[in-house]
Structures are given as C-alpha cells and as structure tokens.
C-alpha cells in the first residue's frame, strides 16, 4: 500500500524515517516524541499513535510502496513498537478488567463464549444498514471494514504454528474456508473486494487509510498485537471465536440491506457467504479451537478470554462510534479537511 499521511508528531517522524530507507537512522528523537505522546493521550483513540502501530504492523503484512523490507526486523523499530504495544495492551487489560471464572471443558467454554458474544448492549449497525442506510452510508461502512476485511483471516493465521492438537486442527479448518477452500477468487478477502467494487469503491488494500479513524485502526492493531506474540496465542483464539459468533446474523442483515438498495450477487456474495460459513465457524471456534485449547492446556484460559473480552469491548466502541456519527447526520470517517 501507499505510505499514509501522518496524523501528528510521532507518525510524522516515523513515516518520514520509513520513507527514507536509511536503516542506520538514529531513532532517539522518535522515541522522545513518543514518550511525550504516550504520557499525554489515551492510546486507544489517539490518531497519531494508532497510525504508528498500524504502520509498524503493516511491515509484517504487505508492507509499503518504496519502503524497504529490511525495516520489518529492524531492532530499533521493534523496540519502539514494543513501547507502543506495552501501553496498548495495558489499556486493553485495563478496559477488560478482572476475568470471570473460566470453564474447563470444551462444551462449557463454548457456552461461555456464546454468552459473552450475545451480551453486547451496543447499538446495532447491522439493523441500521438493514432498514435505513443510504448507499453513501453503506459505502462508508465498507470503507471502515476494508482495513481488515481486505486481508481477512491473515492475523489469525499467524497463530497456527503456535498451537497443537485439536485447537490447531480447528484453526486450520476455519482458515481453509476463509481462504476459499482452495478455489481461486473465493477468498473472503476477495469476495469483500468484489462487494467494494460493486459500490464503486477502490478495493486496493489501504486505499482509504487516511480516512480510517483511530478506533478502527485500534481494532485491527489489536489483532496484530495478539497475532505477533506467541504468549498471546490464546487471545487470537478468543478473538476469532467472538468474531465468528457475532457474524452470521449481522451478515444476513447486511445482505438484505444491500438488496433493499438494489444490489445483488456478486455484490452481496460476501455477506451471504458469511451467513452460512460463520454458522459453521462459530461452532468450530467455540468448541474445538477455544474449548480444545483449554482442555489441552488450561493455562491458556485467561489469554483466550482476555482476547474475547477485548474484542467485545472494542467492537462495542466501534458500533457506538459509527451509530453516533450517523445519528448526528455526519460521517464516521476522518474528514478530508482533517487530513493534512
């Protein structure tokens, strides 16, 4: 993807450093401005810091045009990222608070996760899209989603080699489906690109990065945080379980909302596919992935439920952010004037 526009002193410096491709650059100043930003702001919704995290993680995915691949494992940048991650993880743990008692059988673990997934009290974006959203609002909704959905499933894949046994088989079984079961063009990320194209949106990954607000970046940065640390492999499983468990019913609403606005297959395929697919995935993720992991190693329980609670927390905030904007008649995206 292209290098994003900066959003403040830290990202300004970081993106400039990345773009210059001089691996011997002194990072002292970068660390200093970050110290200031970390003490001044709430990292969860700080545009500047979330963009930095996003950029540092992106080095491990598709990277940036004209930015050296060598930066990916640059020790100084990794140390810098660790500072942001420490603050981000602490913020998430703080929001999640103390975890309730965790079951020790797969069946009960699945039941606990289903209950958690069903307990959201936030406003329903899917209900709104089903009944009221305009084409412009649906476009905005797709732009918000695109920063994850165009690489759907990729973060969780990183956990595969870190798991064993039934949990590993379950994750592979889900991911195989996410990647289109071996049929070219059927990856969920590709179905999403088709939906975007159907609404005249640019489906290149990162095309809308400058419009994506911090809270949305936080939701994808959280996945990368879990995915890139072996110690958080349980959180990947808990995160995926909640994603799967909160997908079928909303996806059916999104598909119907699109049909209400006159769209049909293949534009609606992404959402129709998720009605059926995630009704399967949620069972596998709850029982075999999360449940299987806990039966094999009960010590993974807290990590799994931390991931599950963290995604509920962020998704709730995201839903509120989205609905509040629409209720006030404005966009939930960063406005063009703010980008500079």
């Amino acid at each position, binding site marked *: 993807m292209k290098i994003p526009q900066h959003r403040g002193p830290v990202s300004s410096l970081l993106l400039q450093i990345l773009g210059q491709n001089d691996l011997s650059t002194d990072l002292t100043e970068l660390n200093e401005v970050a110290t200031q930003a970390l003490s001044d702001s709430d990292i969860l919704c700080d545009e500047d810091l979330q963009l930095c995290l996003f950029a540092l993680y992106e080095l491990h995915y598709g990277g940036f045009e004209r930015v050296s691949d060598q930066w990916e494992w640059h020790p100084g940048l990794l140390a810098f990222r660790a500072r942001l991650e420490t603050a981000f993880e602490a913020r998430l743990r703080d929001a999640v608070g103390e975890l309730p008692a965790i079951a020790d059988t797969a*069946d009960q673990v*699945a*039941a606990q996760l*289903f209950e958690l997934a*069903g307990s959201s009290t936030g406003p329903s974006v899917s209900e709104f899209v089903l009944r009221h959203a305009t084409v412009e609002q649906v476009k905005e909704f797709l732009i918000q989603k695109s920063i994850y959905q165009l690489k759907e499933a990729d973060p969780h894949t990183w956990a595969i080699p870190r798991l064993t046994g039934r949990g590993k088989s379950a994750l592979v*079984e889900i991911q*195989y*489906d996410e990647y289109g*079961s071996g049929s070219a063009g059927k990856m969920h990320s590709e179905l999403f690109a088709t939906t975007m194209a159907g609404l005249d949106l640019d489906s290149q990954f990162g095309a809308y990065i400058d419009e994506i607000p911090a809270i949305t970046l936080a939701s994808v940065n959280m996945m990368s945080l879990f995915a890139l640390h072996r110690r958080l492999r349980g959180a990947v499983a808990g995160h995926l379980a909640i994603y799967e468990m909160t*997908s*079928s*019913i909303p996806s*059916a609403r999104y598909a119907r909302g699109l049909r209400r606005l006159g769209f049909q297959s293949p534009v609606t395929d992404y959402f129709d*596919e998720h*009605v*059926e*697919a*995630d*009704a*399967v995935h*949620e*069972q*596998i993720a709850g*029982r075999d992935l999360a449940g299987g992991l806990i039966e094999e190693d009960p010590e993974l329980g807290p990590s799994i439920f931390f991931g599950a609670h963290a995604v509920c927390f962020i998704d709730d905030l995201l839903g509120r952010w989205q609905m509040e904007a629409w209720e006030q008649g404005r966009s939930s995206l960063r406005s063009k004037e703010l980008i500079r």
Partner: protein
Amino acid sequence: MSENDTSITVCPRGPLLVRGDFEILDDKGQPVPRTRETVALCRCGASAIKPYCDGSHKLNGFEKNR
C-alpha cells in the same frame, strides 16, 4: 477419507456439525448445493437457508432450558 471418518456433532442449543465424506440429498434424491467441506445443519427449524444453519437458533431460544 473413508466413510468411518465422517462424524456428526450435536452442538448444544445449535446445529449438527457434519464433517467428513458425505452427500446431502433433497427429498428427490438430488444433491443439495454445498460449497464447504464441514457444514452445520439446522436443528432448530428457524434457519432461512435450510438445511444449513444461519445462526437463528441464537435468537429463538432453541433448547434454552436444556
């Protein structure tokens, strides 16, 4: 995969999860369109995409007091 590797898991309050080598036929013996290997078959009766599950069992309290 041999027939013996086919399994049906009864998910509490949810669908039947069917894995392995199998065919789903309609009442006339015609194959039901299927795009994935492991499927969830609706057990609650409320799915809009029967025979597959669409998650509706979570809304209708299926087997809630089991």
